[in-house]
């Protein structure tokens, strides 16, 4: 495996999973804020569905979107199958419930007095919502990182929706699968270690950045 190919696979992994984590967080965190701040009929059902969805195998999501995006599928006209966009969409769907669940738990642990305190000190309702998010920033960042880690480490969606096309949709995990299938176990292990090091590096950087900004752990 040449270095250029390897670098491209790393880039595809970082790009698709990073985008998936960002987009999923933009949807999941407000949803979690809504769920954490309100009591309504059917809330428990929503949480149970979210919990179940969290356990959905990647190949099932891959299969579902394969059906939707394939030429004869309802969204076939978009021509997205075997593209990085399709991989990102699949990964968003995969990690969305995970980030909702983790963020919900994080926000439920914010002291109930935080919101009224912000309001009485002059915050608008929107600002008070932001302040609650800020109070939970550490566990929220962990939720986003967990989503990213799940996306970058999955192989089912990348394989089924990306198609493992060389220099286009091949990422680290599909590369590992390919190298293993070819019997190149050494390459597979090297790629696996690379994936772990990458994830570790991102975790360390983000957490250090947060700590530096707050001056506390």
């Amino acid at each position, binding site marked *: 495996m040449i270095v250029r190919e390897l670098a491209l696979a790393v880039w595809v992994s970082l790009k698709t999973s990073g985008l998936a984590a960002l987009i999923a967080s933009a949807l999941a965190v407000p949803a979690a804020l809504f769920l954490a701040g309100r*009591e309504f009929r059917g809330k428990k059902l929503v949480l149970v569905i979210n919990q179940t969805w969290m356990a959905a195998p990647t190949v099932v999501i891959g299969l579902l979107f394969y059906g939707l995006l394939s030429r004869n599928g309802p969204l076939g006209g978009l021509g997205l199958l075997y593209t990085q966009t399709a991989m990102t969409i699949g990964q968003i769907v995969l990690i969305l419930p995970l980030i909702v669940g983790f963020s919900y738990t994080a926000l439920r642990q914010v*002291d109930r*007095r*935080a919101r*009224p*305190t*912000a*309001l*009485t*000190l*002059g*915050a*608008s*309702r929107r*600002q008070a919502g932001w*302040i609650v998010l*800020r*109070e939970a920033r550490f566990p929220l960042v962990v939720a986003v990182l967990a989503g990213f880690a799940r996306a970058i480490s999955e192989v089912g969606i990348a394989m089924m929706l990306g198609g493992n096309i060389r220099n286009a949709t091949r990422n680290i995990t599909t590369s590992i699968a390919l190298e293993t299938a070819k019997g190149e176990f050494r390459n597979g292990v090297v790629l696996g270690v690379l994936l772990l090091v990458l994830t570790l590096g991102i975790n360390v950087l983000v957490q250090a950045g947060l700590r530096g900004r*707050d*001056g*506390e752990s």
Partner: protein
Amino acid sequence: MGGLVFRLENLGYSYPRTAASFALEIEGLEVREGEVLALVGPNGAGKTTLLVLLALLVRPDRGRLEFLGQDPWSSDESAGRARRDAVLLTHHPYLFKGTIADNVAFGLKLRKRPEAEVRAGVRDALALVELDGWQAKSASGLSAGQAQRVAIARALALRPKALLLDEPTANLDAGLGLRMESVLREAGREWGVTVVFSSHNFSQASRLADSILYLSDGRRTEFGHENCFSGTAATDGVTSWLEPRPGLRIVFAGRAEGHVTCVIDPAAIRLTAAHNGLARPVGPNVFRGRVSRMETTDEATALVRTSGDLAFRATLPVREVEAAGISLSKEVLITFEPGSVRVVGERPVESPKPS
């Protein structure tokens, strides 16, 4: 005192989705600019609920609440705007993550005050609670008393039109409690801030407040506490008194008009054993009663409750109780000087009747 800050009319509020059938009902209440109003009552009387309503954090179910002459609940935006002039300090205040300065600056930054003004505001407010120099310390890990002081500074820094405090000195030691009392008094009298605070400490309420609102079961009550009597003040030109019950006069020093509430400091009450057949001593403020309860608050002080014509609570040195031969169920005479009667909550009578 200036114009009306709060005006409540047939205000009603009940907690949604709670099993307990608690409801707050306030027929009428007016609080003026610079006034210090104390809310006194037992646990569950509705003091905190009323403070939360005055802080515009919840919308009343019924009736009308005016703040600075306006209905703040006419829209969500107007409630948000009005809320910037009324700050609530809760019993167990919450401090945001970050430093003490971050916390005190919180409201100032929301109001987009210039950086230099924020820094000066933080320093001045922390100096008021004797925490200047603590700016850079983390807000987590403070003791309850320190957290309370930071929260007081955070509220004072905003110089709101109305400062609402739920048991503001509950977590402070006696010395600091007194210091905070003087800060609150200053806020009311010198800055023109309207202060509404709840307190279990009755003597604190009477010391600090221009008027006291007694609450019980979510409603205003006339007699909210022992040693507290309300009625219409009367005078014969020499002495002034009120009659909480017909024929029973509580004489006080000075003059007052209209509906007043008198508070007698428990420490100012003297008890002597009454002997059957003995004529009642002549003089003001002598009442007959029976000891209904006795307990010691510490090694040297006894708390004695009496029932009878009027119910009183007295705190006396234990040795004095023993020397006077006072014991449970014993008939006693209760006496106190007119000078030890504090008149609070004076409200003018709308249309005074000729006496």
